[in-house]
């Protein structure tokens, strides 16, 4: 296939996000007004804004530390969120406690916002478990690796919320919504499209939050779509918006609006957070084989953390003392992640038989017994 055979028509992913991109902070960190969405951030005070900068900084630090741990052989693999901090923190902080999030395997920033200890994320990447937290404790589901599969779980969960009568009651502590995270590559999956159909016809309280980081491993947007992704929503019968994914305030505002709409009974919204994967797909990937450095340089100019920092500096809301304290907290968190990772115990071999069933059946129990006695036979041999 020649290049002329693909990507015809309008550009699906203009570098600047196009005219409909919702933005409240310019890349230089200047506040802009948006007639529909500015009101969703008006209540944020100086502490809230500093809190967002803290979140962004700390999740990047966790990510940096995890990447280092992989390079040192302590993790088998790591999926970096570098560049997507604002998309994750902005949406994560928009969630109410009773809302429920269904992540992919890259939502370390959302996990942070939900209160999941970053250390718990490492088990999967170190190979000691497939998911090391209780989803219901923080309303943050386990990481899902099969692309897009979790969007259906999110939709079903939202259908359950409807049947619990926890939508549209007007009680802000009762009404709940679900947010389903996925990437640009996932929009090609059948499951994601089926989730859109189910959510639409059920009018389910779910927000479909797509982080369009421009790259599905090596495949750019124009190998996945002929139109900007947010416009897909119209065909399914619910609103779609494209937000500047590197603008934490805009992401917060757009997500908050979408969640409120869902909780009040107005059904799903598709949010396309237009962002960029600054690093590799995972530590096993080599992006120099398929993308040029100049593209990465363009996005470096739009770093989500620099953007908010410049804004807060210009507003006089942060000072040296703030940054020193943040640096210290960041170092402490990195040490916690590093030390905790090294201390993660290898699982007991027999534990693989646990939790397959609620009600274990005799054949599984028999296998466990036989394997245990096989292992013990070596121990006996060593002692004699």
């Amino acid at each position: 296939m020649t290049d002329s055979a693909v990507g015809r028509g309008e550009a699906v992913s203009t570098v600047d996000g196009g005219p409909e991109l919702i933005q409240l902070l310019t890349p230089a960190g200047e506040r802009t007004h948006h007639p529909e969405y500015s009101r969703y951030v008006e209540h944020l005070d100086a502490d809230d804004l500093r809190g967002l900068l803290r979140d962004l900084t700390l999740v990047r630090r966790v990510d940096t530390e995890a990447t280092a741990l992989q390079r040192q052989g302590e993790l088998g693999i790591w999926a970096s969120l570098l560049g997507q901090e604002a998309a994750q923190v902005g949406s994560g902080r928009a969630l109410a406690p009773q809302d429920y999030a269904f992540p992919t395997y890259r939502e370390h920033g959302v996990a942070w916002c939900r209160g999941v200890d970053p250390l718990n994320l490492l088990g999967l990447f170190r190979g000691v478990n497939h998911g090391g937290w209780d989803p219901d404790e923080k309303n943050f589901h386990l990481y899902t690796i099969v692309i897009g599969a979790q969007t259906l779980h999110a939709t079903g969960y939202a259908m359950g919320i409807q049947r619990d009568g926890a939508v549209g009651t007007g009680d802000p502590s009762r009404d709940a919504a679900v947010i389903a995270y996925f990437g640009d590559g996932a929009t090609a999956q059948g499951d994601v499209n089926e989730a859109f159909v189910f959510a639409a016809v059920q009018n389910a309280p779910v927000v479909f939050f797509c982080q369009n980081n421009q790259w599905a491993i090596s495949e750019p947007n124009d190998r996945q779509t002929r139109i900007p992704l947010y416009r897909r929503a119209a065909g399914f019968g619910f609103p779609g918006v494209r937000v500047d994914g590197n603008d934490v305030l805009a992401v917060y505002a757009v997500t908050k609006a979408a969640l409120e709409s869902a909780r009040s009974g107005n059904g799903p919204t598709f949010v396309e957070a237009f962002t960029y994967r600054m690093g590799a797909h995972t530590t096993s990937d080599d992006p120099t084989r398929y993308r040029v450095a100049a593209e990465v340089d363009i996005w470096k100019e739009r770093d989500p953390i620099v953007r908010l920092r410049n804004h807060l500096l210009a507003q006089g809301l942060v000072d040296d003392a703030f940054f020193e304290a943040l640096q210290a907290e960041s170092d402490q968190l990195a040490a916690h992640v590093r030390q905790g990772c090294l201390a993660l115990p290898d699982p007991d071999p027999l534990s693989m038989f646990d939790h397959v069933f609620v009600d274990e059946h005799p054949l599984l129990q028999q296998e466990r017994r036989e394997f245990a006695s096989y292992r013990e036979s070596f121990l006996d041999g060593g002692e004699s």
Partner: protein
Amino acid sequence: MASITLAKGINTGLRAAMEADPKVVLMGEDIGKLGGVFRVTDGLQKDFGEHRVIDTPLAESGIIGTAIGMALRGYRPVCEIQFDGFVYPAFDQIVSQLAKMRARALGAVTLPVVVRIPVGGGIGAVEHHSESNEAYFAHTAGLRVVCCSDPVDAHFMIQQAIASDDPVIFYEPKRRYWEKADLPEGLTLGDAMPLHRAKVVREGEHVTLAVYGPMVKTCLEAAAAAAEEEHSLEVVDLRSLSPLDVDTLAASVEKTGRLVVVHEASTFVGMGAEVAARISERCFYSLEAPVLRVGGFNVPYPASKLEEEFLPDLDRVLDAVDRSLAY
């Protein structure tokens, strides 16, 4: 005693489960007003409402995937896959998600989802409507797989499957939907045999037939015919394919010394292979003959004009019995 069909036995079982637990919801294509293409859910939407009997979009992965989400929220979804051959679009959600999620969560989540699948051939249908795909799911750790064969059993098995906190693939032999049996009055769920126990449905001395689903009736007829030739066949309805009740079957084989496994599915890497391996290990010194299998051929399910040739029948079962007895 009320006479019920197998379809009605499941229908009344679903109704009883829905009455007993408001968290039980049904999901599937055409299961509402139509009552399902086999009428198994007939009348349930009318009585329990559209919120509990959900006519879903025509997307099998979507059905199972959203059922998983509902289960995570505390519901007990019972999904209907319209025909066996339509379950494959849902394969990832069943195998990679439904079966593995509890282990992934180290026991923190529970997924009481039932997937009902009309199974097997013999109804003169077009392609994809006659398959026996139980081995795929029996091979998958984390799933329970059962197959009912008679109306009374089906009535209770579906209720037990719904009560199970683990995911259950529930096979219904579609060509037996209209078979009738008497449901004894006063028989309750508490009296029913455990879901994962095999049942000796006819006692005999010379050869054991291990069978499930649509072939149970065929094997009972074969046993009746064999009796006229002084051959006494014991018929064991396995009922549960995962886990397998090896104990009940082994006890039978230790008595008869011979085993023939019968199913509609292709024999290659089918359930019969697992049964044969287990029984060979367990009953080696009791066996008078190798374990034989009777099943579909290792070809795609043929056009319906040929299905009577493809499907095991009474004569093919008795042929295998004769071969077993010849050792």
